[in-house]
């Protein structure tokens, strides 16, 4: 299952789809991926925001406030397509900086993305296509250090 709110696009697919369609007749419009309501401990990684900022955001969630209030014991880092790398990177960085108090558990999944093809002429119906993209969901959780 996929929850996202911003994601990196899969660039390889674009070429493939455009090749099989007449670009004069259709305009490709990619729709947002279907998403689920967000919990406070869900982090969606994208390729636009600065890496350090995203890392800091995760760290903040895990650490909580100045006295450690509202700290999450686990967070979920989600990455789609191109952002998978970055999601993994963030999770590993978190783990490396925690002196062994954080563990990670990764899950992968496939997300269906909808591409809308808008007709350029009056006689054609709009089409939709589904393409799949990979996603990763990393659970970063706190363990009591031995």
């Amino acid at each position, binding site marked *: 299952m996929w929850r996202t709110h911003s994601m990196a696009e899969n660039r390889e697919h674009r070429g493939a789809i455009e090749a099989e369609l007449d670009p004069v007749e259709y305009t490709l419009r990619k729709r947002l991926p279907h*998403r689920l309501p967000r919990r406070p401990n869900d982090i969606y990684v994208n390729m636009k925001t600065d890496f350090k900022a995203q890392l800091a955001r995760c760290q903040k969630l895990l650490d909580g406030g100045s006295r450690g209030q509202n700290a999450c014991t686990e967070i979920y880092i989600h990455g789609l397509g191109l952002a998978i790398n970055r999601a993994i990177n963030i999770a590993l960085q978190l783990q490396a900086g925690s002196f062994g108090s954080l563990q990670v558990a990764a899950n992968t999944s496939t997300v269906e993305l909808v591409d809308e093809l808008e007709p350029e002429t009056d006689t054609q119906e709009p089409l939709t296509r589904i393409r799949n993209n990979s996603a990763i969901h990393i659970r970063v959780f706190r363990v009591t250090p031995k």
Partner: protein
Amino acid sequence: MSNAKERKHAKKMRNQPTNVTLSSGFVADRGVKHHNGGGKAFQAPRLGTAPPRQTKTTHYAPPEPDVSEQLSSRVMFKKKGGWRAGPEGTSQEIPKYITASTFAQARAAEISAMLKAVTQKSSNSLVFQTLPRHMRRRAMSHNVKRLPRRLQEMAQKEAEKAVHQKKEHSKNKCHKARRCHVNRMLEFNRRQKKNIWLETHIWHAKRFHVVRQWGYCLGERPTVKSHRACYRAMTNRCLLQDLSYYCCLELKGKEEEILKALSPMCSIDTGLTFAAVHCLSGKRQGSLTLYRAHRYPHGVLGPVTFIWRPERTPGDTSASRQLWIWLHPTLKQDILEEVKAACQCTEPVTPTPCVPDPLPTPSHGQSQPALPDEKIGKKRKRKDDGEDAKPVKKFFGDGTRDPHQPRSWISAATGIVISDLTMEMNRFRLIGPLSHSILTEALKAASVHMEGEDTEKTPHLWWIETCKNPDAVSLHRRQEAIFELLGGVTSPAEIPAGTVLGLTVGDPRINLPQKRSTALPNPEKCQDNEEVRQLLLEGVPVECAHSFIWSHAVCESVTENKISDQDLNQKRSELLVPGSQLVLGPHESKIPILLIQQPGRVAGDDRRGWGSGWDVLLPKGWGMAFWIPFIYRGARAGGLKEARVHSQYKRSPYVPGDFPDCSAGVLFAEEQANDLLEKYKRRPPAKRPNYVKLGTLAPFCCPWEQLTRDWESRVQAREGSPGAFPPRGEGSDLRGDEVPCVPTPEKPRQAPDEADTPLQDARGPEGERDTECPAQAGAAGLPGQDATGSLLCVLRSRAALKQLSAWCGPSCGGRRAAQRAPGRGQRDLTPEACLPLLDRFPRALVWVSLSLLGKGSPEPRTMICVPAEEDFLQLGRDRLYCGPQEPKHSDPFKSKIRKQKEKKKVEKRQNHGPAGSEGLPVGGPAVGLPALTLGLWSGPLPDVTSHCSRALLGFVTQGDFSMAVGCGEALGFVSLTGLLDTLCRQPAAQRGLVLLRPPASPQYRFARIAIEL
């Protein structure tokens, strides 16, 4: 000595007793009369009973310069002498002796004066305001007894005076009477005679800054500080807007006839038309730009959205159809005229046309309810017994239409009926991801009427009849199911753009929550299932787009039979268990509504689907009944300002400001320029920017016409010189008669003197154009047609825009361009490749979006300029280089203004005040010179493109710091000729970089240009 200074001094001295007045330097003559006591004291013995006049003469006898010199030196010298130094500047030395009696007398006079001054209140504050804070009491202002005894008398006097001063109460009724419902309604009706109120007006008036615009009273922005909150609502939650002021035109007739009539008004070049398959079936909403018939690149009427009523018999083109065209009120007049002309609808239909609806509907008389109705218009109908006809019209009324004019027209030839449905429906817009949860929580599909329920007294006969038809019931169930599915979709952007869903809902007031709360998406509903997937992929099936709101009869009945808030509350209070659910059964109103998805941001790559939402169409009279439930579910209300922000972040043009080629846009620009000029003139010259020195020719309006013309002549002038730009075909088909007069643009431009103030130049160029090429103007301009008849047009051809958008990319060999180029048959950017485009759209503007590379937040009317070579060099050297500066221009008008002023002074002019500066030119050589305002360019503008150090490309129409992106963003128009010329000259690596300069700043900043579609 100025008059004001003297007056000020007099005021200061008002309460001073005469004998203690200090003679300061400039009140010399007065200083004599009340000379200070000390002076008198020692004068007396010497001069005896000599009159003061003589005293003066003796004292001040030496010639003036001498005195002043003495005076100043003595003052300097005596500075240490303390208080005596100033006043006694003229006295010679310290007196050798003092007569005790006179001295004491003088002191006594002083003391008594001081005592008098203390008792007399000098400031114009009230008595109780003079008390120290700790002695003040709450009710002092109206209860004299609260004051200390000694002040009571004074306060009493003051209070009496205040009562007299208070102006006569304008209302002849007491407060209570005025608050009485009947009188309030009368008052409300009187107040909305001129500008129409929306149904939510009272609600808005309490919370919004209301402006009168387009014949309506509309909420401009909330009174609370909420710019960012509204942005957050659009992005993460839900923003609610009342768009009921949008106008709706209804076309009824045979499908083929309607399509035939409307097809000349739109062009396939700009995108889909009325005939697009998915729109024609009624499944989706379509949007397009209307043009005057057969005048495609020119004569823009404005953008509209439209919905077809879902057809019953697919494929039959001769079937009777219904089409709704929704448009902005500023565009209505033009579009209505043009549509009427296109459909040949000339005969006004006096009675409201009755749709032959398959559904049996209750007749009017029968359903006339006994229930009083709280709807404003309804009330009016009941109250104004004397004028029966008028209130009815008011009920249907809207600000853009004369109430006595017919609302619908029929054509004998084509059989098309056009009706103006403005204010017949409410349109609410929900923007943001939470709009689904708000909709699904606030609205519940109407309960199907069961057989055997008591149907005797219910007024909702249409629903009972519907429920007898099993097909209709099953359709209702399907619609309900789809509506419920929406609750499981977390963003409206996931639904296909423009999806239409019809629904019949129960009264939303019944399940109003006790308190305002926030509707949050329910995670249980959000499970992946096949139905949701189907909905996302296919959209809503065609049948489910059907709604009874299309039928006038049903709408009218629903409006008539609305149960009033009062009755509803009455019933609620009669419930056995307080707070339990109210069950009205068959008496509950069933309201047909239509939900239309608004796609939000579709163009461009980033933030896709931002600002998507749903529009809800309701029958009139039900506005507040739906508004409050939405608000109670956590929607935040926005006004016109929020609409502007929404369209800016969506990067879509805002009606009417961003349509410079349509008459509404021109009018809007003129009004705006007038307002800004007024505002500018109100500031003192030293406290406002001198736009002439800044090199800003037109700070208040964008001279599009002249911009495009200047670019044309600029490029042509360069063609004449060898090299630079390859020659174009001289006799281009579109403007054969215009070419000869363009190469000499300077002379005709200097000649006309009709442009009297800078703000007139929106109009000026047109006049000039007329003088230049009358043939063209005669061919182009229909009688009574304004700026839309000019050559200026905005490029809306999708093919051309696609081409341009590819060329605007950062480099021609860029990643995306390279990928797309072979597939799309894109050509490389060469001057030759531009020619066909330029020939087809000779003086076109292109809608572009700009994002700043670094600092800076552009404002409207910011200039878009072409960077010079050295700017690129600098930028290459220093990545943080913020841009060049515009050198200071000289102000040739300053001396003229000074001369004029002097002349005026000399000539003792009759007209004074600010009118003088605007009004008649002063005689002599100044005749013919326009009135001058310091800091503004007057007279006809010189070549706008080359006035500054960087060539001007266009202007920004919307611009601000974008909270969505985190940097300055702007939207605007550039000249097509200029853009192509610039792009051709720029090196491929820096293609698409431009400079932005706000009108009141010399600083240029880098921005990247992009054309999105």
